């Protein structure tokens, strides 16, 4: 009896004391997971990449989740933010309250595959094209963060991507830039008013989460609340101010909601030598931006209009909607050239795009 007890204790101690890898932790993957995380080359400083805590896939991405008709949705409050996508035919809303818990939704909308990537810590929501070098993939949450921002990984190669830098930063696809889809971030009231036929990702995600409750406390409004270190802490604006940023040739310019009135407002601007039009509405809680020059080379003069989904008209008699589609006029069916842009907390723009310009600042 005594020997049995002592032997049992020794076996347990030995197991607990097994040194898996002195100085470093040990990561293992079993099963069919292709992301081994063994590549050591990074395009970002690896000592600024941190393990967020939940671990790889500890925040589960959604895979083509069920949708419901927007008219039947009761779980969204009017002022809740959604990421909206419209392909010219059908609209869909991806609510923040679901993305806060999943960060990535691999979806197929109206026959088009897309990955909605959203980082709750940087407030950045970007639509990614999951077709990379001709091959479709899906994305998962790596559990790693750079400047507090989501690092998705692609399930085909296991490569790690920087969401805000829009490129692969580690793995077989290192250096590859991601192609994006335009999303419009706005509140639920605005979205369902513009697109009453919209569908919405349902709460029946297959995961049991507290979707009505925000998982990060006062993070959205407390400017002192940053969870991980930043490489650059640009303090020109409050850290959590939501701004619309445009990226041209690797440089960024930020547009603040305060620059727009409570009616649809147009800003004609130039950045990095190109003319852009930035349209926003502080009360309807959206900002979008396009190049002024059309695909046919013309540069019409635009005017803001306030007709629900129509936000612009030009001197050639065209009317344009929030996604840049010409809905009437000679250019009907054409689309404005969208900028590479998205909304995010100011600190993320400051950290990822050093010395970003700020409009009217």
């Amino acid at each position: 009896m005594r020997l049995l007890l002592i032997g049992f204790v020794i076996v347990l101690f030995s197991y607990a004391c097994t040194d898996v890898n002195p100085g470093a932790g040990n990561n293992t993957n079993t099963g069919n997971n292709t992301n081994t995380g063994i590549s050591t080359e990074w395009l970002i400083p690896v000592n600024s990449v941190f393990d967020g805590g939940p671990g790889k896939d500890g925040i589960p991405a959604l895979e083509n989740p069920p949708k419901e008709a927007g008219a039947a949705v009761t779980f969204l409050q009017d002022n809740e933010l959604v990421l909206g996508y419209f392909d010219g035919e059908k609209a869909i809303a991806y609510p923040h309250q679901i993305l806060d818990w999943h960060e990535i939704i691999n979806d197929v909308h109206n026959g088009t595959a897309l990955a909605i990537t959203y980082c709750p810590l940087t407030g950045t929501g970007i639509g990614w094209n999951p077709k990379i070098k001709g091959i479709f993939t899906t994305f998962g949450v790596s559990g790693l963060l750079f400047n507090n921002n989501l690092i998705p990984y692609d399930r085909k190669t296991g490569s790690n991507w920087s969401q805000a830098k829009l490129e692969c930063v580690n793995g077989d696809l290192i250096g590859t830039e991601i192609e994006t889809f335009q999303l419009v971030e706005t509140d639920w009231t605005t979205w369902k008013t513009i697109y009453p036929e919209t569908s919405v990702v349902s709460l029946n995600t297959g995961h049991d989460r507290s979707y009505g409750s925000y998982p990060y406390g006062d993070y959205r409004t407390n400017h002192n609340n940053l969870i991980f270190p930043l490489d650059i802490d640009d303090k020109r604006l409050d850290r959590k101010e939501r701004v619309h940023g445009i990226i041209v040739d690797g440089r960024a310019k930020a547009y603040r909601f305060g620059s727009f009135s409570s009616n649809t407002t147009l800003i004609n601007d130039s950045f990095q030598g190109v003319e852009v039009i930035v349209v926003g509405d502080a009360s309807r809680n959206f900002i979008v931006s396009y190049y002024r020059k059309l695909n046919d080379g013309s540069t019409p003069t635009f005017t803001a209009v306030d007709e629900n989904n129509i936000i612009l008209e030009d001197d050639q008699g065209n009317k344009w909607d929030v996604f840049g589609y010409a809905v009437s006029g000679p250019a009907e069916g054409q689309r404005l050239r969208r900028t590479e842009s998205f909304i995010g907390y100011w600190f993320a723009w400051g950290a990822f795009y050093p010395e970003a310009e700020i409009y009217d600042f």
Partner: protein
Amino acid sequence: MGFSFNIFRSIGLLIISLLLFNDVSFSQTCCSGGVPLSANIGLPASEKGAVQFSLSYDYNQLKTLKTGNSDLQDKLRERLTQSVLLETGYTFSKRFSADLFLSFVRQERHIFTPQGTNSTITNGIGDGVLLIKYNLLPENTTTSLLVGIGPKIPIGTTNKTNDIGIALSADLQPGSGAWDIVYWTTFSQALGFRPSMSFLATSTYRATGVNPDYLGSIKYEFGNELQIITGIADRFVIGKSIWDPSISVRYRRAKRDINNGVEIDATGGEWIFLIPGLKYSITPGIAANFSMEIPLYSFVNNTQLTPTNRFTIGLYYKIYKN
């Protein structure tokens, strides 16, 4: 009458100690297995010159995901903390003694996905505690009341990285990187109707310090923590064997962790466990013990993994130096 006076006086002292050490509200980091310092420190009172050793193994599995006090139907993640705990005590006089507590910790994180299991494992030396204890009732043979205070010494590793050099989060580190102060009180009273049976109560309050360079630039503080364990133990002689079964309840309350001065929402909470235990005395100076924890109640802030299964097995050895 004497029994009543003693027990009420002792309980009074215990309550005063708790009030002194308890501040407003109390935690552990999100999903942290946590090194079981507070639940294990404090060797029993002993004779002057006695040297005591306790070597134990602690297994703590967290796979119950909760929001508030509601279970979420989710088995995606598991956190496992296994610790080897060595405690050495020396009794300087009938009133003063000291314990030194050292730990070796293995932290595991497993994510179960349709594509496979992602695992992260770290291990290393954990933090230590030096506890100076004072026996308030050294002459009393039926009642024992000890108080103790000491530092939790941050000798544990806090810079563990994964296999490609990425720094791991605080709850996967074997150490905390912070000096804490540990306040400890224990009380036992033999029961008059059955002298072999005793009432036991232990409280531990950990006033946590700050790790000044978590991830290189962050000031990180685990939440202050209060634990109260209370229960009864009895002794049975079966043949030539001495067995001490016990049953106790552990209450744990922890404040939220603080990251650069800001509370982390999904940390901290309250837990209550039922702890059946059994000690087998191999010789008068050597004993083996086993206990397990059964979760009875928990309330976590926001959404967190909470303990699902836990057990401790250990050996105790005492040397008399008369």
